[in-house]
């Protein structure tokens, strides 16, 4: 029993299809708590379906996803989601603080307004990502990295132990990438489990404790050294990328 408790996300024999096309095929993986997990794989590999499955949005053809031991489709709010930057309407009339307060919406009953406690929690979350000074800005006025951090704050304010991030490093410069990574690290130290969709293989080994390599089916799950192997990568990417050798060299060194 005690051993089972360690798995925060358990995916078992998960098969999901869209109109007879399998998006995920017999994926089984168990993710332990308190770590930074990267999900890698080529475009169309089912990474976002995998994320949706953990959020409990997709109905599996067969198999199950369990969050802290309970079915992902019935538990609500145990997993916080940080959307991809491109999917957010940055012209929406909303301030940084309001986005963070949204993290508390689940705890607030429908007949009540957000209280001082909720706002305080939101401010704490903003402080954790070092965004408290910009709390009254409209979100479109922020830089790419700041925008990412606001949504991190919202996820932290939700109080969930599991955070899902969809390509947080897409389209930001190196310094910003560092700043975001720093926030991820601190969230991990605060006892969160982070599952991050990532596309840059050259930084994957450095950033993550464990990697999940998928392309419809699961090719590997484990520490970067065991996942970033030439035979696996060439199978998954079909020789489309030539930079592997350098990635693997770094890993081997």
């Amino acid at each position, binding site marked *: 029993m005690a051993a089972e408790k360690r798995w925060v996300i358990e995916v078992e024999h998960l098969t999901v299809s869209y109109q007879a096309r399998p998006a995920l095929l017999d994926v089984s993986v168990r993710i332990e708590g308190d770590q930074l997990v990267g999900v890698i794989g080529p475009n169309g590999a089912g990474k976002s379906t995998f994320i949706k499955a953990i959020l409990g949005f997709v109905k599996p053809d067969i198999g199950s996803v369990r969050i802290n031991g309970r079915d992902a489709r019935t538990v609500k709010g145990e997993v916080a*989601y940080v959307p991809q930057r491109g999917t957010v309407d940055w012209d929406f009339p909303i301030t940084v603080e309001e986005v963070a307060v949204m993290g508390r919406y689940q705890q607030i009953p429908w007949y009540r307004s957000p209280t001082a406690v909720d706002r305080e929690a939101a401010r704490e979350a903003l402080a954790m990502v070092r965004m408290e000074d910009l709390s009254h800005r*409209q979100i479109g006025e922020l830089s790419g990295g700041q925008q990412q951090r606001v949504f991190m704050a919202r996820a932290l304010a*939700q109080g969930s132990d599991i955070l899902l991030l969809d390509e947080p490093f897409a389209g930001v410069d190196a310094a910003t990438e560092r700043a975001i990574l720093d926030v991820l690290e601190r969230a991990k130290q605060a006892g969160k489990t982070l599952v991050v969709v990532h596309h840059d293989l050259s930084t994957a080994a450095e950033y993550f404790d464990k990697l999940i390599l998928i392309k419809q089916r699961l090719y590997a799950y484990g520490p970067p050294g065991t996942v970033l192997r030439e035979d696996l990568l060439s199978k998954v990417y079909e020789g489309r990328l030539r930079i592997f050798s350098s990635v693997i060299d770094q890993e081997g060194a």
Partner: protein
Amino acid sequence: MLYDLFILPLTEPYFQKALIGGCIVAIVAGVVGCLVVLRRMAFLGDALSHAMIAGVAGGYLVMKLLFGLEAHAPGMLLGSLLAAIATVALISFVARISRVKEDTAIGIMYTGIFALGVVVVSIFRHYIHIDLMHFIMGDILGVADTDLWVSAFAGAFVLSLLILFFRHFQLATFDPVMAASIGLPVLLLDYLLTTCVSLVVVSAVSMVGVILVVGLLITPAATAYLLSDRLDRMMWLAALFGTTSIIGGLYLCVWLDSAGGGAIMLFCTLQFLVVLTVAPKYGLLARWLRLRSLIPQQVVEDILTTILRYDRPTPLSIIRTYVESGKGLQRALSRMVRDNLLEASEDGYRLTAAGRQEADKVLRAHRLWEAYLATIGTPAREVHSTAHQLEHLGGEAVEYLDEKLGQPKVGPHGNPIP
């Protein structure tokens, strides 16, 4: 005189009713319109209003044939609601199961159902007495008491829903994925909002007509959108702009003796244009001022290299000869002094240490580009001017050239590369 213009209309009952009915409708339409604008469903309002005529005709017909009631208002209202909901269902059905995209599906369905309504009304013209013109143009100055009551109830219902579930609508509009992940019934909220829009449209059509009702829904909201960074404030402002449109439009209509609906929407649109021009943050004027105060990087870099090449305090006249920039030059110079790139003295401008560093960077880029251009066979007389254009390219360009050319120390004209 002023009394005649402003107070006299207020003493007329038709004007009072128009004012009350119009304001109720405009406030609710403005508030709902905010969500419509943010969800980009403006076209839906149009579709709903056109579909209504079929519903009104259907409701009229059923009430008349089954119960013998002439022009039964609640029956017609119910009919229009059903027609509206049917239209929305048909639109999403067609968009989902066929390759036809949503905007096309909306266009097909609303014209189709509108046509159905027109045909039904004209076939049964001996049974049902619906004035198509009234329907299309609306008649705010002839608002009946029942219309007032209908819009008051519909408005109260919609407003209370939106106030009670403000956060839910906000989140479902802003981030449906998160809304679903914390267990909000996103689909139900969508339907609820569509019902609210239908209710507003139904209660507004008798006043401003089928064609203009969508304007009442989205124009005040869009006006407010230009002025607010928070949804609640946007809703307040939209309600305010809706009200001012009604008041302004009604006076306009009385003074000019024009059609009521037209005057209201004209006023509403003018109001939008004014705000679009002068809005402090998102207005055209503000944008223009921002762009004007922006100093092109190219001008800054040209000033730096000009002074660097001149190699002693450079008077304004010299800079003016070498730097192509219209009136902005003086502003650029004072900005650069403020940014501590230049020092102004009596005999001209001098580079500071930081300015010198920046200037070296640009000069280096220029000479590297010259070297590169020489190697690819650019005619000698074009080398300088082309390099002058290319030196402003940012990113990795310069380092790439440096590497490709084998880190040269001198340029093609024998000038050292810093």
